[in-house]
């Protein structure tokens, strides 16, 4: 009885901990946004500022709008009010003309707040102003992030309503952010799966980036060089080429590990550099677009392109479903087949795997082939679904972010999909956050980094939220880890 509750608690924490990690990272990110916002800093410091229009320097000036917002008609006794060069104290009854001003006078003065008047920011006299500024700063940033990644809910509802009334013109713009998020998530899903599958087999595939490149190269070659094929032959062929290309690229370090013991971390990194150089050479040589002088490949045939479902700007393409299908396939392979059982056993305890008669060589090479294949598929997916040719700067670092994704998703396909959606969403929303709220795009990298730190060090989260460590997963502190039987119920 007792033990099963504990097991359930352990299970609940596998879901709860990542969620809390994300929430905590968002909170800390919010604090970071607040403390780096000059408007907020200003609200917390006692510096006189001149109301100016146009407003240029937030350190010494304040916009009229801001000043009115900050100093509405609620001047109270004790406020310091600056008029011209003089600083006057607001009092009930004026006893000293040179330094004081009556409440009535001051209230009269403020509706006329205009350029040239200096106001004071004083947190302790009006804490609400500072707190409101802080809240405004975060909420503007995060709502921009939300609107940039999911969309403006009101606008989306209106667009759908108009569509029912026969006017589909608003749809594309309203759903553009969501489409972009899903498009950005797609390569994350596939490369995340690649690294997760490697983890399950006990292998640290840092080479997803290189495999993504090679997959892209193989796919683009099949895409432009074969002509006249029907789409249901050409497209699968292009995707398969990417998978095989990435797979072979991954299998090389796998084979080196199995046969010589060379560590896959080193070799997959080295294979990355070879892949980058290979791509550079091919795009400047054999695969260069004829008649051009830029290092890009020719465009692939229309028959090798993943279909897009909506016209216009909406780039959402079938590749997203390909990625989800691969996640389902990986889940089935890992947990429902003998192949996955072997991979997981080799990953969890290679000694026991060998004693049980499994071949380490076969499984290491297979795992690296499958892992590389998924990363290659990701490259192929971007070629056939998004860009249609191979540019020189192909990847946005998916191969490296994928390590974080596999960690965040606990190497489980479902977890990886969710983590990839989160990362894709954050990335897609970052652009809008930068343009609307002037929050540097790097804050997203910081957010991601914090999420990963909290996932990697769950003790921090447990300490913050006073969660109990689930005892089931830890060995007992007795000499041989043998207390379980002797435990009084």
């Amino acid at each position, binding site marked *: 009885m*007792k*033990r*099963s509750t*504990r*097991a359930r608690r352990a299970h609940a924490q596998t879901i709860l901990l990542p969620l809390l990690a994300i929430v905590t990272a968002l909170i800390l990110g919010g604090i970071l946004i607040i403390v780096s916002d000059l408007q907020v800093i200003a609200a917390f410091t006692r510096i006189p500022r001149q109301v100016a229009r146009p407003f240029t320097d937030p350190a010494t000036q304040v916009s009229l709008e801001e000043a009115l917002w900050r100093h509405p008609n609620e001047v109270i006794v004790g406020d310091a009010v600056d008029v011209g060069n003089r600083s006057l104290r607001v009092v009930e009854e004026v006893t000293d003309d040179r330094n004081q001003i009556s409440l009535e006078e001051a209230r009269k003065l403020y509706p006329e707040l205009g350029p040239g008047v200096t106001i004071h920011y004083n947190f302790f006299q009006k804490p609400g102003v500072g707190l409101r500024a802080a809240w405004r700063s975060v909420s503007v940033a995060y709502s921009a992030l939300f609107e940039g990644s999911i969309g403006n809910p009101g606008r989306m509802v209106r667009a759908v309503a108009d569509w029912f009334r026969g006017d589909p013109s608003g749809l594309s713009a309203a759903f553009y952010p969501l489409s972009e998020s899903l498009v950005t998530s797609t390569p994350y899903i596939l490369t995340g799966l690649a690294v997760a599958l490697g983890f399950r087999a006990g292998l640290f595939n840092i080479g997803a980036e290189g495999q993504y490149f090679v997959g892209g190269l193989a796919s683009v070659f099949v895409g432009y060089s074969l002509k006249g094929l029907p789409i249901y032959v050409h497209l699968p062929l292009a995707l398969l080429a990417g998978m095989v290309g990435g797979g072979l690229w991954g299998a090389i370090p796998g084979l080196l590990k199995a046969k010589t013991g060379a560590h896959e971390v080193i070799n997959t990194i080295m294979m990355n550099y070879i892949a980058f150089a290979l791509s550079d050479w091919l795009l400047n040589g054999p695969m260069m677009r004829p008649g051009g002088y830029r290092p890009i490949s020719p465009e692939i045939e229309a028959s090798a392109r993943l279909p897009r479902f909506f016209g216009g700007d909406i780039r959402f393409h079938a590749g997203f479903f390909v990625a989800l299908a691969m996640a389902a396939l990986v889940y089935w392979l890992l947990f*429902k*087949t*003998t*192949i996955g*059982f*072997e991979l*997981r*056993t080799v990953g*969890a*305890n290679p*000694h*026991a*795997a*060998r*004693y*049980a*008669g*499994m*071949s380490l060589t076969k499984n290491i090479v297979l795992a690296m082939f499958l892992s590389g294949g998924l990363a290659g598929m990701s490259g192929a997916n971007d070629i056939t679904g998004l860009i249609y040719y191979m540019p020189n700067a192909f990847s946005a670092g998916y191969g490296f972010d994928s390590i974080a994704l596999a960690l965040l998703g606990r190497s489980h396909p479902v977890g990886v999909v969710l983590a990839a959606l989160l990362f894709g969403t954050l990335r897609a929303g970052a652009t809008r956050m930068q343009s609307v709220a002037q929050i540097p795009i790097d804050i997203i990298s910081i957010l991601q980094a914090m999420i990963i730190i909290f996932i990697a060090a769950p003790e921090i989260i447990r300490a913050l939220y006073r969660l*109990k*460590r689930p*005892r*089931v*997963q830890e*060995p*007992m*502190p*007795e*000499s*041989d*880890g*043998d*207390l*379980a*039987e*002797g*435990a*009084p119920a």
Partner: protein
Amino acid sequence: MAPILQLEHITKVFPGVVANDDIGLTLQEGEILALLGENGAGKSTLMNILYGLYAPTHGRILIRGQEVNITSPRDAIARGIGMVHQHFMLAPVLTVTENVMLGDEPIRQGLFLDRRRAAERVREISDAYGLAVDPDAEVRTLSVGAQQRVEIIKMLYRSADVLILDEPTAVLTPREVEDLFKIIRNLVASGKSIIFITHKLKEVTALADRIMVLRRGRVVGETTPSTATEGDLAAMMVGREVSLTVNKTPARPERTVLAVDDLRVLDDRHSLAVDGVSLQVRSGEIVGVAGVQGNGQTELVEALMGLRQAVSGRVEIDGVDMTGAAPRTVIEQGVAHVPEDRQEDGLVLEFTVADNLILNTYYQPPYAKGIGLQRQTIDASAERLVRAFDVRTPGIGVAVANLSGGNQQKVIVAREFNRPIKLLIASQPTRGLDVGSIEYIHARIVEKRDNGAGVLLVSSELEEVMELADRILVMFKGAIMADLPADGATRERVGLLMAGVREAPPSERDKEVSG
């Protein structure tokens, strides 16, 4: 005079488990107190509290009548309590003196290590208690027994009055055990007090002045060797009557299932670990391989299982040449293997009980159809095996890491015994297990023999080999020293062979004749 050490009402609660429940313990000066209990009874927890590694939830510690607060091993040592751990804490590349002075170095002229002075003290201590350790020897060149004595010197160097020895005999040969007992008696004679942790009954009766038995975190009895028999002690430990001897009928060996001819195998350091071993195991008999650990038994078994390539020689299993065959081929030939290191080699700790039960049959019907695992069949079979082999687990979906050592071993036994086998190779099948589990696993091995399997039992526990085997092979430095029928072998004879002595010295021989 107040006793040198008193523990009063010690309670230690780990989340969900009471590891020590209101334990009281008194140690008189110059006394050997044996702390007896199964794994998980709370012996180690109690001693770790005394040594400052854990803080007790309740209770207090008194030294010579004074209440003390021990929060770290440093505290414990400062108050004269020293502990020799089961796993030695020595730096192999340093000399004995350097190891001993580590953390408490004598300084010369405020700057330089005073090795000479330290070495002198080590020699004094060594001579005073008959420890026979060379202060200038590198620790890695010493035998296990000598390394243990270095650990003891380390504590005496720090002027420990109370020595805690945690399962000190687990790694020793019978001869070394006797030497250790002599040393312990010397220590006591010169006024030291000893707490001796063990789960071996023979040692307790041979050595202790007083015996305290722990079960499930509680003191269940206190007695002396003169008033309690081994049977009484075992019953106290386990909480029920236990049979200490294995019931078995004489063996009826039939055809040869394992024939090894002049096998040579290298170890990981490329030196010859198995040096020309030839042996046969016939169906229906248990052949025990006795020997101190590290004399080539591990490499021999690995070579038989196809896990290690042999340099030369031949292995035949049930008439088929299996020299250099892959592990899976050997397993499919009908060989069951209970590996020496069950957590490292026999189980995947984070996998469930059900998955561990199919670890080497997962690809065969009925557990798999094509590449698809048949989860329902696997689970049904697991439920059946858990019941049949009395594996105490909350469920088949629980990770084996959460099971006790005895139940983990039962999972392996259930898996290996569940398929039709001709040969069983069991390495240290009961190491570290409690009396109850040992009894169970021994009975199962005998049952397999009676059902017509050949059994090769490799064990460094002399008792186990003597009890179980129909024929005893003694292994020393990679070679078979002797092949004895079980009823013709005495403890003394086998013990000497394990130490590499072929002929018994006259005094021993007399004893054998008269006995």
